[in-house]
C-alpha cells in the first residue's frame, strides 16, 4: 500500500479511517499496524470510528435469518423433484 504521509509522521485521522477495515481484518503490515495502534491509544474519535466499523461488521453477520419460508421450501422441493425426474 502506498502511503501519502512520511514514515515518521503520525498518521492523520483522515487517513486512519481508510485503514480501519484492513486493520480489523489483521491485514496491515506489522509496522503500519503498530502505528495505527499508537494513534488509537491517543485518539478517542478514531477509536470510536474503528469501534463503529467493527460493530458494522458484526451487525452484517447478524442481519440475516437463515431459515426458509414455507413457500420457498415448497417451490424448491418441487423443482428438485422435477430435476430428478
Amino acid at each position, binding site marked *: 500500500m502506498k502511503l501519502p504521509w512520511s514514515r515518521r509522521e503520525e498518521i492523520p485521522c483522515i487517513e486512519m479511517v481508510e485503514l480501519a477495515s484492513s486493520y480489523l481484518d489483521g491485514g496491515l503490515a506489522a509496522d503500519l499496524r503498530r502505528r495505527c495502534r499508537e494513534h488509537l491509544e491517543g485518539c478517542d474519535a478514531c477509536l470510536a470510528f474503528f*469501534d463503529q466499523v467493527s460493530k458494522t461488521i458484526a451487525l452484517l453477520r447478524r*442481519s*440475516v435469518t437463515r*431459515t426458509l419460508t414455507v413457500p420457498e421450501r415448497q417451490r*424448491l422441493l418441487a423443482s428438485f423433484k422435477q430435476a430428478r425426474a
Partner: protein
Amino acid sequence: MALVEMYHSGLLRLARSYVNTQQLAEDVVQETWVGLIRGIDRFEGRSSLKSWLFTILVNTARTRGKREARSIPFSSLWDPASEPGEYAVDPSRFVPRGQKAAGQWLRPPERWEASAEEMALSSETRSQVLLAVDELPPTQREVITLRDIEGWTASEVCNALAISETNQRVLLHRARSRVRAALEKYLERQ
C-alpha cells in the same frame, strides 16, 4: 434440506446483485440448486461444496443478468485500485489541508454505546443494514455479502469472483464504509 437452509438466503442476496427483481433472483437460485443436483457427480471435492455452489450461482446469475440486458458487474475486468478514490468518510468532517491540525476530526463520530449483540436485537437496525447493502454498487455488494454476511475468507472470495487480493480488499473497505455511514445516519435520526 440442511444445505439449502444454510445457503439459500445468501444465494438469494447475491443473486440480487445481478438481476432486477426478487422474482428473477429466486429463479436464479432455484436454477442454481438444480444445477448442483444435476452436476453433483462431477463434483470432485477439489473445492469446497460451498464455493462450488456459489460459483454455479455466479455463472447462472451472470448469464441471466446478461439476458435481462442489465449491466452486470464484471468483477474480473474491473480494477478498483486504479479507480479514482472514494472516501470512507466525508472529507468535510476533517480539518482542511493547509490549516493547523489538518486531517484531524472536525466532526468526530459518536460513540455507539450499545454492543453489536444489543444493536442486532432491533429488527429495524438489521433491516437498515441490509438496505444499505442493497444500495451498494454491485461489485461491492458481491464482496461484502460473501465476506461479512456469509463469513467467507478473503481467498475464497477472490477465487469465487476471480478478483485479485487488492481488489477484494478495496471493495470490502468501500462497502463497509458505506454501510457504516448509512448506519451512522440512521442512528442519528433515532
